[in-house]
Structures are given as structure tokens and as C-alpha cells.
């Protein structure tokens, strides 16, 4: 619809690398006035890097950068602002303790001649702006008292009404409820009519197809497709994102993989109608001994909250956990551990003691089994040595401070601490994220070995490969609800992404 006019923003042959790794390779990108441009691609495909270049966050790159046909170089985000470019980042960047009105006018509150803030005018104008957006809140409410979805809408509203000509939205819908998404889309369409150009990044391909005019697909730092939204489909976009053919070095899971017949072994954990405010809705499932249950979903889908509830770190609003037939309400993580539940969270920093030696990291969870009052350091070291040997942790020195180990080896230590007296249920969050291929394979083999030893294992991940490589049965979590179960059927990355 806007093909006739010349682009407001044009990038030619953009290449950007971080420490020798190319994040973008010769990318061309054009944005026309009054266009909503959708961007899709897997994590690390280069979408965010490109947007950060446009928003002036990354200033070192090669290639041409043209605004209104004139070559430009931003030296900071302030330059981008001055050129009429604004970006809403995925993480909320609001001030929860300030009022709604203050947040809307953050940084440019209306003042009188003495420099004092004109509160009444600010509240009135904020209210007007927000009601144009379909948000009906008292502008003098503390922002933090509002639901997260509404906070996000207010942040988006602030940027949309800041007068920017180009607005970049990074995953704006992940925390929004369906009616809130509708409101956002209605506003985006209205702004498009007024000539604002919008870049819309999202994992939710349906959302992209519904609101955008053009879609660009990224893969491995390259632009692999650009089409009119009306002329494509979710399936075609997923195919372009993943890519067929021998491009990937690893097993790419593009072909169908057969999930085994569901196991009928003992039910170790039964989760019954678990809900947690806006994060989780009515979650019910079972985990069985000797089975790896994969739970896949996009970032912010509620995985993190679910794993914390299973380990007694968060308390659900409603719902029950039944461990081996006994209903449990975990008062603390200590209670969960005693009931035979173990958790390896996604962040190793949260899980390990970086200033303590490896053997203390491994023995911490089992100290009450190997010693009553007095410590038995020799035994601790023996146990740690055995684990280090079995899991091939490098370097194999149990007295070394944990901080000296590489990320992959730290992850192995995080697993090792639960393995001397294996739990009944092991919950793993992103077990292979950020690891090199070798370490990934090691971890996958460890998990498979634990499965044959009869543990019930739950793997939660936002990376399809992780879930596909490990799970016997897969649940898909979407915006806090379980939407699909894969079992005893063919599965591929396409099918998994299609369901999410």
C-alpha cells in the first residue's frame, strides 16, 4: 500500500559483529511512511540487533543508514530520539512508584514559568491521551498498583504519543490479554493512518500477520524473506525462519521425530488446576517416573513461575501439587527438597556459590545426609570427586573456586549437586542455554541417563531444540495456559512452533 512512496528509513548492507561473531550479515531493510512492518526470526537471528542499530543503541556497524534519503549516523539514542525514532523494549522500563501521569510525561513534564510541575494539566493531558488509547484509569494512580498488562500498554502509549515518526515495538503483546492486544492493534492502525511507521517484533506470528502490512524474516543474521503479509501464511513464515537444507551444523529437528508411546509407570507428580494471578491459568498435568516431560513456550509464558511453584519458592493462588499420591503445600524450598523435588533454575548465578570451591557447591544439598552435627570434609570431597568424574567436569579439581569454571561446567555442577542422592522429581529450566555443542551433548546424555535410572524429569525451555532433544512427551505453554500436548505422535520444530 505504501510501495509508491520513497522510504522514510533505509538500511543497506548492514553488517554488525560482536567480538568476531557476525550478528548481522549484509542486511537491507526499508521502512515506508504509514507502514506496519513485522519482523520474525528465532532467538539470536538478528532482529533485535538491527532494531538497536536503528534506535541508536549500537553505533558501530558497517553499511549505509539513510533517513529521508539522506545518509545519517547516530552517535547515541538521543540522536535517534531527535530524528523521531522511539523504541519500546521487551522489558518494562516504567517507574512503578510514580503516578500514571508522571510515567506518561516521564522526562518532559509540563512546567510553568517557575519550573514547577503543572500537576493538574499533566493529569488532564495524560488522561486524554490514554483514553484515546482506550485506557480508562485515574492518571493519579500509582502505576505499580495496575496489572502488568496495563502497565505495558501505558508504556507503549507513552512512546506512541511521544510524536515519534518511527516506533519500534519489541514483543509488545507477550504480557497482554486478548482484549488488550485488540486495543493495541486498533491504536497501531489509527497511527498508521496518521502516517507513523511502526516496526513490530514478535514471536506470535498470528499477531504479526493480523496487524502488519509487510513481514521480514531473519535467520542467522541474514534477511531471508520479505513479503506482503496478505500473501503469506504462518506455515510459510515458520519454514523461512527455520530454514530447510543443510545450513545448520547441528541436528535441526526440521524432520518429524516420533514421540514414544506414553509411559504408564508410577505418577510422581500430579499438578491440579494451578493458577497464579496473571502468570498461570488452570495448569494440570502429570509427571511419571522414567519419563522426560518437556514444557515449551515463549519467554514470559509462565514457565519460570511454574518451576518456582514446583520447588516451593512461589506459592500458587489456587491449585494443588500431589507428590506420589500425597497432597503437598511446600512452605519452603527445604520442604520441597525433603519431599524429593529438585530444581536447576535457568540462571546459574542464582544456583551456585561462585566464591566457594566446587566440592562445597556439590555437597550443600546433601550435607544433612552425610553429616549430623560435624562436617565430614573428606567424605564431601570424595562424593564431589565421584560426581566430577562421572559428569566429566573440567578441570577435575574439587577444591577450585566455582567461579573459575566455564559456563558449561558450572551447569554440570548445578546438576551434580542433586545426583548423589537423586530426587524423585528433577525440574530443569533451560538446561542447555548458552552452552557450546560439546557441553550441550554432555548435559543431554546426563539427563537421558537419569531417566533410565527412574527419575521423573521436567524440562522447561524456550528453545525448541532443547525440548525436542530431551522430551518423551511435550506440553506447550502459551500465555500461562497449557494449549497442546504432544505424545505418541510425530513432532518437529514446525509443529511445535505452530502450536505455540
Amino acid at each position: 500500500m505504501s510501495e509508491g512512496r520513497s522510504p522514510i528509513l533505509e538500511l543497506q548492507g548492514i553488517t554488525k559483529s560482536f567480538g568476531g561473531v557476525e550478528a548481522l550479515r549484509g542486511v537491507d531493510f526499508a521502512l515506508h511512511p504509514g507502514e506496519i512492518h513485522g519482523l520474525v526470526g528465532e532467538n539470536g537471528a538478528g532482529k533485535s540487533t538491527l532494531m538497536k542499530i536503528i534506535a541508536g543503541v549500537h553505533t558501530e556497524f558497517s553499511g549505509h543508514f539513510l533517513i529521508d534519503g539522506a545518509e545519517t549516523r547516530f552517535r547515541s539514542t538521543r540522536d535517534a530520539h531527535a530524528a523521531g525514532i522511539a523504541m519500546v523494549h521487551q522489558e518494562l522500563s516504567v517507574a512503578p512508584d510514580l503516578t500514571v501521569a508522571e510515567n506518561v510525561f516521564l522526562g518532559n513534564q509540563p512546567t510553568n514559568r517557575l519550573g514547577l510541575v503543572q500537576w493538574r494539566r499533566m493529569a488532564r493531558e495524560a488522561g486524554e491521551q490514554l483514553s484515546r488509547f482506550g485506557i480508562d484509569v485515574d492518571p493519579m494512580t500509582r502505576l505499580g498498583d495496575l496489572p502488568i498488562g496495563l502497565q505495558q500498554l501505558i508504556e507503549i502509549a507513552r512512546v506512541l504519543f511521544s510524536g515519534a515518526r518511527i516506533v519500534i515495538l519489541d514483543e509488545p503483546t507477550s504480557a497482554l490479554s486478548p482484549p488488550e492486544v485488540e486495543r493495541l492493534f486498533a491504536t497501531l492502525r489509527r497511527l498508521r493512518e496518521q502516517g507513523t511507521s511502526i516496526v513490530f517484533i514478535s514471536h506470535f506470528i498470528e499477531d504479526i500477520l493480523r496487524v502488519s502490512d509487510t513481514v521480514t524474516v531473519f535467520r542467522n543474521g541474514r534477511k531471508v524473506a520479505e513479503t506482503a503479509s496478505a500473501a503469506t501464511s504462518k506455515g510459510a513464515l515458520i519454514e523461512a525462519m527455520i530454514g530447510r537444507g543443510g545450513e545448520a551444523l547441528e541436528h535441526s529437528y526440521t524432520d518429524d521425530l516420533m514421540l514414544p508411546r506414553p509411559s504408564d509407570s508410577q505418577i510422581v507428580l500430579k499438578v491440579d488446576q494451578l493458577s497464579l494471578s496473571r502468570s498461570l491459568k488452570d495448569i494440570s498435568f502429570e509427571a511419571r517416573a522414567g519419563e522426560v516431560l518437556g514444557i515449551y513456550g515463549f519467554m514470559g509464558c509462565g514457565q519460570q513461575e511454574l518451576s518456582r511453584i514446583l520447588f516451593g519458592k512461589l506459592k500458587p493462588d489456587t491449585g494443588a501439587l500431589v507428590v506420589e499420591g500425597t497432597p503437598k503445600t511446600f512452605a519452603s524450598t527445604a520442604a520441597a527438597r525433603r519431599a524429593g523435588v529438585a530444581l536447576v533454575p535457568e540462571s546459574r548465578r542464582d544456583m551456585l556459590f561462585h566464591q566457594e570451591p566446587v566440592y562445597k557447591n556439590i555437597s550443600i544439598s546433601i550435607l544433612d545426609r552425610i553429616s549430623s552435627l560435624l562436617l565430614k570434609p573428606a567424605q564431601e570431597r570424595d562424593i564431589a570427586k565421584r560426581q566430577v568424574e562421572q559428569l566429566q567436569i573440567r578441570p577435575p579439581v574439587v577444591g577450585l573456586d566455582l567461579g573459575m569454571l566455564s559456563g558449561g561446567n558450572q551447569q554440570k555442577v548445578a546438576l551434580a549437586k542433586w545426583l548423589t542422592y537423586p530426587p524423585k522429581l528433577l525440574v530443569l529450566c533451560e538446561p542447555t542455554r548458552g552452552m557450546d555443542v560439546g557441553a550441550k551433548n554432555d548435559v543431554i546424555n546426563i539427563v537421558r541417563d537419569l531417566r533410565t535410572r527412574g527419575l521423573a524429569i521436567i524440562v522447561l525451555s524456550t528453545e525448541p531444540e532443547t525440548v525436542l532433544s530431551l522430551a518423551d512427551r511435550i506440553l506447550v505453554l502459551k500465555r500461562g495456559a497449557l494449549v497442546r500436548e504432544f505424545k505418541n505422535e510425530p513432532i518437529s520444530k514446525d509443529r511445535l512452533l505452530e502450536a505455540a
Partner: protein
Amino acid sequence: MSSETALAAEQRARGLTPFLRSQMRNIAPFLTLIFLSAFFAFASPSFATLDNLGNILTQVSVTGIIAVGLTFVILCAEIDLSIASIANVTGIAVAYFTLQESYVNIANIPLPGAVAILLSILLCALLGLVNALGLTLIGIPSFIMTLAMMQIAAGISALLVRGQIAYKVPSLITTLGSGSIGGIPWIVIVAAIMLLGGHLVLTYTRFGRYVYMVGGNREAAEYSGLNVKLILGAVMVISAVCSGIGGMLGVAHFGSAQQNEFDTYLLDSIAAVVVGGTSLFGGRGGIGNTIVGLFVLGVLNNGLDHVNIDSFLKILIRGLILLAALVINVYAQRLREKAAE
């Protein structure tokens, strides 16, 4: 390119320097102690004598007893501001339960000595428990919780003595606080035993390990399935009981029990622990550090009396030394983090 050269530079630096850097926390207080001792020995002939060493030991004993419990608290990255008040109220309580001379105008409840001691210890344990519950169950930051407890304990003290002074305490307390055996004051022996006990608990017991782990990374301790609240609660009670014991012996040592008697011990105890090099961020340090810190403070206080300095200036000097120690404390933490990266 630049990251490669940085890496090479770091590899060159590996060797003795990182070890020294990581030990900065332990080395710096020790050097401070040696420097101060040498300075006063040079400045005053009466400083470096065996008699004066005995004086220093006796002078730091009450602080030392209180600092044992405080070390546990600070290792957990918490703070206890109620230590001096709890010491005061426990000392007053043990006198309150002892028969006083007729001229002491306190409506007290005389009990047998053993019962009086037991009740007093129960009192300080109870106050510590209130601290523990406020911190763990309600979630009040320890700084605020113990600030409130400081007032509460001072209030109980005021109600018990009502502005009067009591002199008598049970004979066991009198002996331990002011007696001596073979020329060594009992209070020094008690302090030494308690410091040793604290060290053994921290180094060789499961509980001690938990204290270090909770202080080192509380999140990780929780993800390891430790009962973090129980451990935090326990250290608050330990701190209160150590303070109580310090208070009872202190009353016997000073020869009287009265309001505001222990006020200076709050800062002294915190200073001893921190000057010794125990990290305010938790997880690093220990009783060994506290002992060095006690000697630094003891030598400083005692030494300033031996040289001819305006007594009002001494307060300022003490403050400056404390500041210097805090700077080193924070700096050592940063060096360590750098070494770990």
C-alpha cells in the same frame, strides 16, 4: 583484538597476585594491627609491657563476647543493632533477680543464683527470638527490626531499675566477671572460650557451613533447599544470647548495673567484626578476623591512653580508623570479585 590483549594481560597476572588480592581481607587488618602496635610501642615505653597486654585483653573481653554472636549475624549479611541494649537489659535482669543491699531502692525479686542466671539467659534468648521472627516471618529488614529492639530492650532496662543502680549479682557471675585464676582474669578466659567455640561452630559444623553459604549467596542457598529463614533466625538468637552473657559478666566487671551502661559496646562490637575483615556483604571472614579486629580496637583505645593526646581528639581518631577499615572492607570485596571473574 582488544579483548585478546586484555585476556593475555589477565593470564600474565595469574600467579601470586590474585592469591594476595583474594587474601587482602585477611592481610590488611593484620598489617593494621602490627603497624599500630609498633607505633605505640615506639611512642610510649609503658605500652609494650606484659602488664599492659593483660590490660588490653581484659578491656576487649566484653566486646569480644558480644562480637562472637555478631560475627554470625554479619556473616549472614544481616546486622544486629540491639546487641548493646540486650547486653544491658540482661545484666540488669540478673541483678534484678539477686538480693540487693538495703540501701538500693529497687523493688526486685531475689531468687537463687542459678535461677537468676537461667531467667536472664531466657530473657535475652527471647528478645533474640523476637528479632528472629520479625526478620524471617514478617520480613522486616534486620537493620530496622533490631533498631526497634534496641529501644524495647532499653525500655525494659528502664522499667527494671527505674533510674537506680544495683550492685549485687549471683556469685558465679561475680567470679567470672571480676575474679581471676592464676593471675588471669576469668573474663578473659570466658571470652577466649566463647571465641574458640564460635570458631569451631563456624568451621566444623554443618550449621556453620550453612551460615557461610546463606551469607555467600542467599538465593543459591534457597535454590539448594536450605531453610534460609531457620538459619537467619538462629543467628539472631545466638547474637542475643552472646550479648546477654557479655552483659551479665560486664555488670560484674564494672561492679554495677544501670541504664545506658553498654552504649559504647554497639559500635565497638560492629567495629571489631568489620575492622577484622568480615564482609558486610556476608559469606567471608570469621572469628579469626574478629579476634584481629578486637586487638586493633583494643590496641588503639589502650595506646591512645599511653600517648599524650587530647582526649577529645581520640574520638575523632577512632572514627577515622573505622572509616579506613570500612573502605578496605569494600575494596577487598571488589578485588575478590575481580579475581573471580
